[in-house]
C-alpha cells in the first residue's frame, strides 16, 4: 500500500538504455513536484495523441501508405495514455487516503 504522503513514483523501471530520458526523472519533493510531473505527463500524452491523430488522418487520406509507421504512432499514444491513466489512478487513491485521515 503506497504511503499516501510520499510522492507517487513516476519514473517507471527503465526499459530503455541507462542515460535515456526514461531514467532521469528527479525525485519529486513538495507539492510543486507533483504538479510539474503531472503537467509534463499530460503534455506528452497530448502530443502523442496529436501525432497519432495526424498519422491516422495521413493514412486515411492516402498521404502516407506506411502501415508500420502509422501503427507505431498509434501504439505510442495508447501506451502513454495508459501511463497517464495509471498516474491519475494513483493520484486519486492518494487523495482519497488523505481525505480519510481524521483531522
Amino acid at each position, binding site marked *: 500500500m503506497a504511503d499516501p504522503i510520499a510522492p507517487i513514483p513516476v519514473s517507471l523501471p527503465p526499459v530503455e538504455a541507462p542515460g535515456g530520458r526514461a531514467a532521469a526523472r528527479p525525485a519529486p519533493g513538495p507539492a510543486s513536484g507533483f504538479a510539474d510531473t503531472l503537467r509534463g505527463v499530460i503534455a506528452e500524452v497530448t502530443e502523442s495523441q496529436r501525432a497519432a491523430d495526424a498519422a491516422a488522418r495521413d493514412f486515411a487520406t492516402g498521404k*502516407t*501508405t506506411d*502501415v*508500420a509507421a*502509422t*501503427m*507505431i504512432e*498509434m*501504439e505510442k499514444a*495508447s*501506451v502513454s495514455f495508459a501511463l497517464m491513466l495509471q498516474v491519475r489512478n494513483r493520484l486519486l487513491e492518494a487523495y482519497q487516503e488523505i481525505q480519510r485521515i481524521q483531522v
Partner: protein
Amino acid sequence: MADDALSISASALSVQRARMNVIAENLANVHTTKTAGGGPYRRRTVNVESEAPAFGTLLAGRSGARGVRVTGVVETGGARPVYLPGHPDASREGYVQMPDVNPIVEMTDLMAATRAYEASVAAIQAAKSMAQKALELGR
C-alpha cells in the same frame, strides 16, 4: 499517383500483361501473309517507360519511387521474303512476304515478361506480409 509500393507493383503487372498479349498476337500471326490493311502481319513490340524520377531525387519522407507504363504498341517488324511458289500469296517469282516474327525470340520475351510479372507478384506478397505484421502491433 502511383508512388506507393503496391501501385508500383500493380503497374508492372499491367505492363507485363500487355507485353504478353502482344507476344501472343505475334505468335498467332506468325504465318499471316495477308492482313486487312494489305501485306503481311508486322511484328509488334510494346514501348515501356519508367515513371521513376532521376536518381537522387528523394522526396521528404518518401522514396519517390514510381512504376512503369506502356507508352505505345508499335509495329517494328518488316517482312521476310520466303520462296514458296505454290502459296496463294506468292509473287510471280514465287516469293511470299512472311511476317518477320521469330518464335524463339517471342518465347524468350514471353519468359522474361512472365518472370517480371511473377517478381512483382512476389513484391506485392511481401508488402502484404509487412502490412499484416504491422497491424498486429501491440495486439
